């Protein structure tokens, strides 16, 4: 929506810097994750968010630490967008004691309740019902908070996701369902697995307002979210926002992607939210290249620092294996 974009372009330079910093932090964080993964420093598997930065950062742009988000297996970007500490994240992803979850969670279970981040979720469709619960808390407390459930196109088909939308409509809670449609659920295209012509339209038929925006355009996402927030914060009602993105890389780090032709991959990578953003803000001379490059350098240092700290950090003490199962038992 051109309207929205121009509106967003009236952001303060500070806001723009923060947005850029977050997007670029995600990009560099994920690139480092890939590198450390290849080096054998990250156990298990990891799903990076590269190519989708504008979606997560745009969605979280007008949220505060008091608002809630529920995330997915591809959650690093959401964490950073919501303000989680990147060092704590990197430690967690390496399974180290000092990680955000003391090494017990890992890439697919990062949470930070102090930032309103209710957890990545390794179960596809796991977060939407939980996010409705957080929205219910906000409604009960009448504190104006909202709760965002991130889902992918694949997760948009899961029964729990549909149930959550209906529940949010019935209970009239300020839940915002964000569907990041990156065209794939693992190795299967959304065009195959989503039987509906449109995820947003399908959501709308549940009785909520719904919208689809270009998820590689930070400003379009912010604009869409402002409509959602308006409905959620002032009317206490749910909303669905589809953000179309492209997955620059494989489903997981190391996915050889034989199911995507080089042409498709090149086209997917050509849609780059960070390049987009840089072009837009420099075009209108709100930020200049030198400033952006300066931010890049700062982020590079921060990521390097986080990675070094994580590499050097100890694994959890074995005595913690059986702690924190319960509050009391």
């Amino acid at each position: 929506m051109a309207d929205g974009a121009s509106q967003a372009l009236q952001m303060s330079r500070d806001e723009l810097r923060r947005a850029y910093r977050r997007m670029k932090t995600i990009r560099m964080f994920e690139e480092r994750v890939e590198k450390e993964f290849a080096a054998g420093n990250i156990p298990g598997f990891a799903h990076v968010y590269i190519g989708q930065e504008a979606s997560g950062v745009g969605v979280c742009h007008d949220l505060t630490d008091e608002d809630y988000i529920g995330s997915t297996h591809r959650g690093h970007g959401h964490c950073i967008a919501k303000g989680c500490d990147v060092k704590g994240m990197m430690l967690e992803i390496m399974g180290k004691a000092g990680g955000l979850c003391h090494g017990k969670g890992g890439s697919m279970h990062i949470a930070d309740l102090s930032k309103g981040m209710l957890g990545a979720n390794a179960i596809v469709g796991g977060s939407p019902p939980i996010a409705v619960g957080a929205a219910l808390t906000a409604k009960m407390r009448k504190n104006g908070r909202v709760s965002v459930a991130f889902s992918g196109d694949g997760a948009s088909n899961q029964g729990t996701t549909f149930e959550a939308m209906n529940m949010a409509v019935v209970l009239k809670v300020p839940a915002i369902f964000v569907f990041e449609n990156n065209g794939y659920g693992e190795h299967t295209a959304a065009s195959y697995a989503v039987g509906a012509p449109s995820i947003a339209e399908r959501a709308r038929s549940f009785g909520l307002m719904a919208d689809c925006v270009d998820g590689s355009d930070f400003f379009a996402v912010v604009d869409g979210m402002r409509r959602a927030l308006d409905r959620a914060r002032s009317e206490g009602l749910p909303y669905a926002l589809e953000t179309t993105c492209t997955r620059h890389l494989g489903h997981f780090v190391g996915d050889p992607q034989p199911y995507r032709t080089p042409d498709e991959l090149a086209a997917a990578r050509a849609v780059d939210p960070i390049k987009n953003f840089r072009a837009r803000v420099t075009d209108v001379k709100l930020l200049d290249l030198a400033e952006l490059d300066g931010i890049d350098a700062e982020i590079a240092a921060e990521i390097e620092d986080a990675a070094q700290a994580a590499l050097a950090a100890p694994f959890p003490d074995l005595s913690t294996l059986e702690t924190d199962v319960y509050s009391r038992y």
Partner: protein
Amino acid sequence: MPKKSYRQAINEAIRQEMRRDPNVIVLGEDVAGGQGSSGGPGKVGSVFGVLAGLYDEFGADRVLDTPITESAIIGTAGGAAMTGLRPIAEIMFADFVGVCFDQIYNQAAKFRYMFGGRAKTPLVIRTTIGAGFRAGAQHSQTLHPLFTMVPGLKVVMPANAYDAKGLMIEAIRDDDPVVFLESKLLYDSDGEVPDEPYRVPFGEANVLREGKDVTVIGTGFMVARAAQVAAELAKSGIQCEVIDPRTTSPFDEDTLIESVQKTGRLVVVDESPPRCGLAADISSIVAEKAFKALKAPIRKVTCPHTPVPFAPNLEDEYMPNPRRIEAAIREVLAA
């Protein structure tokens, strides 16, 4: 002390806790009932009547009727719990757990551990268990093993009205997810229940009857059956020690082991299928930790490895019944 039914006892516990703490809410299908109807809401109070009157007292904000979507019910409750409420979610029959098990066992039960101890999930899941209700294979199961198995859950099986109230209050005040299993066949059973709030702690077994010959342990509705058989056998001089663990997780190993150390014999009466059930669990604890004291094989009295049949005569045979319990006790005494 005033006499109240098991149903009333639970109602009273929830009502008192809702008065005490505005964060306590109730949600589920027809927990109020009548939403959107011509007669208006609040007329049902959950299909077994356990929540009667709560809507009238606390209103739609705290007694929330939901659609028939159990994953969303538990997920909503879990998310609300993590963010500061103390929800009591109802799953009408434990059998329905199959449509929402993920939100129980992978989500609510694991938040705390996965998040490194940084989450608190004060959630109570109330549901009903037990055969004998003539309700067929999908409305009659006794699924406490399914929950007991799950690290992160606490599992409560009140066997009488007094415990029902005290354990419910304990469950609501507990900061972890608690599965509260109500025996349908006990709803109308009466007991002495104080009017004021009180707590029955988790992990402390109730020794209903002391005895030196054999330890008989059972849960939920089976406690009464075990006690009944024990009373009968007492007439012929057989002294059973009857134990009700009250909660299966945490489980009071000490009381059981002490008892077996005295009696040397154990019969476990458990209404659930025989494989990987609570009877096996309890048996294995004793076979590991009180082996030396054992004078006879440990007998399990469970349901057979079949779904719950509908025909009343088959269903009665399906459940552990006094005849089978008595036979098992006599067997271990003879061994």
